[in-house]
């Protein structure tokens, strides 16, 4: 008999416990083979069993050594609840269950701060679920028919001028443009958000880009996809499909060596440039790609050795918004001959309105979009303390930015795009529609795309292993063995099906309020059952 050691790690200290039914198990080994965390192992257990081998019951008690599946009691190998073992088990002999009594947060900091991927697990409140589309066309005006009428579901990406600033001259009853205006692309009001090759596996990234091209070419939905910080294959840079892509530049400038070299051979312009200042999941914390995920092809695209890649929290050399506008915006605009809109993405913050005001008042009129990313956004890797304890909800911040523009008569001049939690409950159309009524021109989504590819992570601490290189679904890993788990075509199809449904749902939301084009800023269409939300967002309180 061994003495108990209090400090030993036990299964009960871990967030997930494996429930195993030895009587159902055939020891096929599938669960052990599939577990990317090595959280379970096959071993021999010395058991006292009662057996009967005769034709008649002749129970005999025996001490036997039998093979079993056993959970590993280790922080490094802690089960993340991904459920792959249960998925592959032919006999439902094994599953992971949440352990509410775990001591994981106390024990897992032995090698420094806890790092993980995913999204905040503490701030999953849902303002949008308390908001209802409540101004329905009844008698005063007719609702439209979502199947029969035409709807214009497009959003601007690019700097819009005030009407009086347009270089229009009236001659013989016709207006003609006499000068250049900043480039503006009218795109679908939902952007596939910036997830890099590196954070995502090549297959996952390819599935998202395949879905993008399919939606454009087969369904005429001008959905745009943002590359994420980390570049993209040269083949794509030099193909016609580049027009569906928004290139991202972040503080690490990863991938831009290749992008710049490819520019002379680009057949078309990209859809836009997105300067990433920060992201909602880990604001002020910079990018992070753990060495485990810096595979050879990632090294090649980014031009880096195998090492943990940290993008700095700031763009080096930029100390103010004014500088950002003058240096980055101008140089990126100039790089593409002022033909490609350049937008900026910031983490939602108490300071967002100040940033937006500065951009609105910039004399160059050069910022083509303000992307606000809320705390419920996702990431491939971050310190848990950032994920759970820093950030800002996006809904009220988006509204504040819109109303700040309204106050100055500048609404619509720099399109507002909001993300970070859009589609958190799987209902992206409703979320997008409500954000648009509150003043967004469009929304951007990321997590929901990888969930459509098969990601099983959630905001209740499930999986979130994106940072480890051991993603069980082959989405957030560069391990060739794991990547093969992802079926590119099936993944792309899931995304396409979802977006087509979303497009129908957008019509289903526009039709009853009698709108055939997007109700940007139409806050009167919304009501809420929460008085505090009504006061904050300036919408009607109902009960």
């Amino acid at each position, binding site marked *: 008999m061994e003495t108990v050691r209090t400090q030993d790690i036990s299964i009960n200290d871990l967030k997930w416990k494996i429930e195993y039914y030895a009587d159902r198990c055939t020891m096929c080994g599938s669960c052990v083979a599939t577990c990317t965390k090595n959280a379970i192992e096959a071993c021999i257990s010395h058991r006292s069993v009662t057996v009967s081998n005769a034709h008649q019951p002749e129970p005999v008690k025996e001490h036997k050594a039998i093979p079993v599946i056993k959970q590993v009691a280790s922080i490094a190998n802690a089960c993340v609840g991904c459920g792959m073992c249960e998925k592959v088990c032919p006999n439902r002999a094994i599953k992971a269950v949440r352990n509410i009594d775990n001591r994981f947060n106390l024990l897992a900091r032995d090698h420094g701060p806890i790092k993980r991927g995913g999204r905040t697990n503490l701030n999953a409140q849902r303002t949008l679920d308390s908001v209802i589309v409540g101004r329905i066309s009844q008698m005063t005006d007719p609702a439209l028919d979502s199947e029969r009428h035409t709807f214009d579901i497009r959003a*601007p990406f690019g700097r819009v001028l005030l*009407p009086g600033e347009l270089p229009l001259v*009236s001659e013989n009853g016709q207006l003609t*443009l006499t000068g250049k205006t900043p480039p503006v692309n*009218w795109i679908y009001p939902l952007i596939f958000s910036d997830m890099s090759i590196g954070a995502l596996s090549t297959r996952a990234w390819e599935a998202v880009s395949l879905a993008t091209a399919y939606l454009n070419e087969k369904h005429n939905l001008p959905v745009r996809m943002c590359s994420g910080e980390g570049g993209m294959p040269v083949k794509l840079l030099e193909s016609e499909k580049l027009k569906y892509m928004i290139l991202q530049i972040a503080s690490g400038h990863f991938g831009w060596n290749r992008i710049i070299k490819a520019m002379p051979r680009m057949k078309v312009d990209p859809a836009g440039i997105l300067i990433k200042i920060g992201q909602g999941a880990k604001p002020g914390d910079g990018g992070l790609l753990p060495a485990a995920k810096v595979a050879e092809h990632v090294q090649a695209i980014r031009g880096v050795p195998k090492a943990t890649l940290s993008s700095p929290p700031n763009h080096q050399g930029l100390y103010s918004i004014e500088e950002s506008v003058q240096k980055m915006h101008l140089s990126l605009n100039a790089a593409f001959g002022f033909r490609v809109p350049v937008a900026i993405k910031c983490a939602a913050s108490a300071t967002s309105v100040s940033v937006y005001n500065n951009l609105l008042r910039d004399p160059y009129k050069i910022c083509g979009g303000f992307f606000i990313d809320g705390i419920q956004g996702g990431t491939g890797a971050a310190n848990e303390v950032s994920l759970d304890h820093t950030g800002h909800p996006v809904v009220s911040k988006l509204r504040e930015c819109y109303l700040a523009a309204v106050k100055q008569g500048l609404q*619509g001049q720099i399109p507002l795009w909001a993300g970070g939690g859009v589609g958190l409950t799987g209902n992206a159309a409703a979320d997008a529609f409500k954000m648009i009524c509150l003043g967004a021109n469009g929304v951007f989504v990321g997590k929901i795309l990888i969930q459509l590819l098969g990601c099983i992570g959630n905001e209740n601490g499930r999986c979130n292993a994106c940072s480890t290189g051991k993603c069980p679904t082959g989405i957030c890993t560069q391990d060739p063995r794991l990547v093969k788990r992802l079926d590119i075509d099936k993944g792309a199809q899931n995304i396409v099906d979802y977006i087509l449904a979303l497009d129908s749902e957008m019509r289903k939301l526009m039709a009853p309020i009698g709108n*055939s*084009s997007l109700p940007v800023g*139409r806050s009167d269409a919304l009501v809420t059952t929460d008085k505090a939300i009504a006061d904050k967002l300036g919408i009607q309180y109902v009960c």
Partner: protein
Amino acid sequence: MCRIGSIKSKVPVHPSKALHLMLPQQEGHDNSGFAMVMQDLYGVFTEYKDKPLLSLACTQRGAQLVEDYMDSHNFVQLAEWIPKPNKQPGLDIKAMPYYIFRNYDYPEQYNDKTQEEREELMLDTRLALRKILEETNEGYVYSFWPDVLTLKEIGDPRDIATYFRLWDDSGMLVAKSIITQCRQNTNYDIVRYAAHPFFIQGYTLCANGENTFYTKNMEYQKSLHRGYTGFESDSQNFIYTLHYVLRQLKWPIQYYKHVITPLPFAEAEQREDKKVLSVIRQSLGHLEINGPNTIIAVLPSGDMITCCDSKKLRPVVVGGDDTTIAISSEVCGLNAILPNRDMSKDIYPNEREVIVINNDLEVQRWKQ
């Protein structure tokens, strides 16, 4: 739903004709009020066509406040017409004590000013009077502009007409252009200012329908011009955008339709002027209107126009003869006042069309 109507004629027309245009349509307009704007005036106003005419409904104290303001701002009263009402019992009208229609001469210091400066003065004066009357709750000022008379009242239009003796054509009150409707703002509070037609700096507009982009229109218009005030009705958005596009931006009339009901993206993409249409849609996206509606408007030139929403969810018909052309929500209105017109020439504009009737009664019909 409202019913709206207008008459444009080569010979001066009496308001009773406008009433006859509207009364057959009463199932739609519910007889809750009467409002009209008369332009190109004859009768008692013939001599003062170039002098600003103030249209006012007020209390005695309100009249005094207006007089004090006008005196202190050096406006010189030239003429005045105060209707002598028929106060027979039983009339359905919530009348104000006084209705004043008064011509002024411009202040002396404006003798050398440009027409544009005078137009700004007239707007500022109307806004100032409105503020004074609103603060004291002593009355309403509807228009202050040469050759434009506005009357708005709550009640049954037939009784309102009896009250103001509009059934009797004495030749004193006639005009070549009348735009009218017979309903109060039944969706919201009954406020006299909410009753169309609305007027601003030579632009007059009447709307039948709903503008479901009221909030975003209003939020944007508030910052565009000091004259864009009130917003008691979602129909005011139409006139402010008309004024903004034509007077402030100085764009040709066809671009008004492109602003309020832009072509679908796919359709605009096929056009030669797609770049112009695109920048207009971008920059004026917050002035787009949605919902079912038809408008009738009169421009400073005297041209009368009508157009509909992008789905043609509200009716309108244009018809007439060599002397008179009328626009009406329903054809029964035209039949009442122009029974002998050639009905085969009636125009039922579609969702992309604009009809313009000029002072020679030439009718232009074009698609946006």
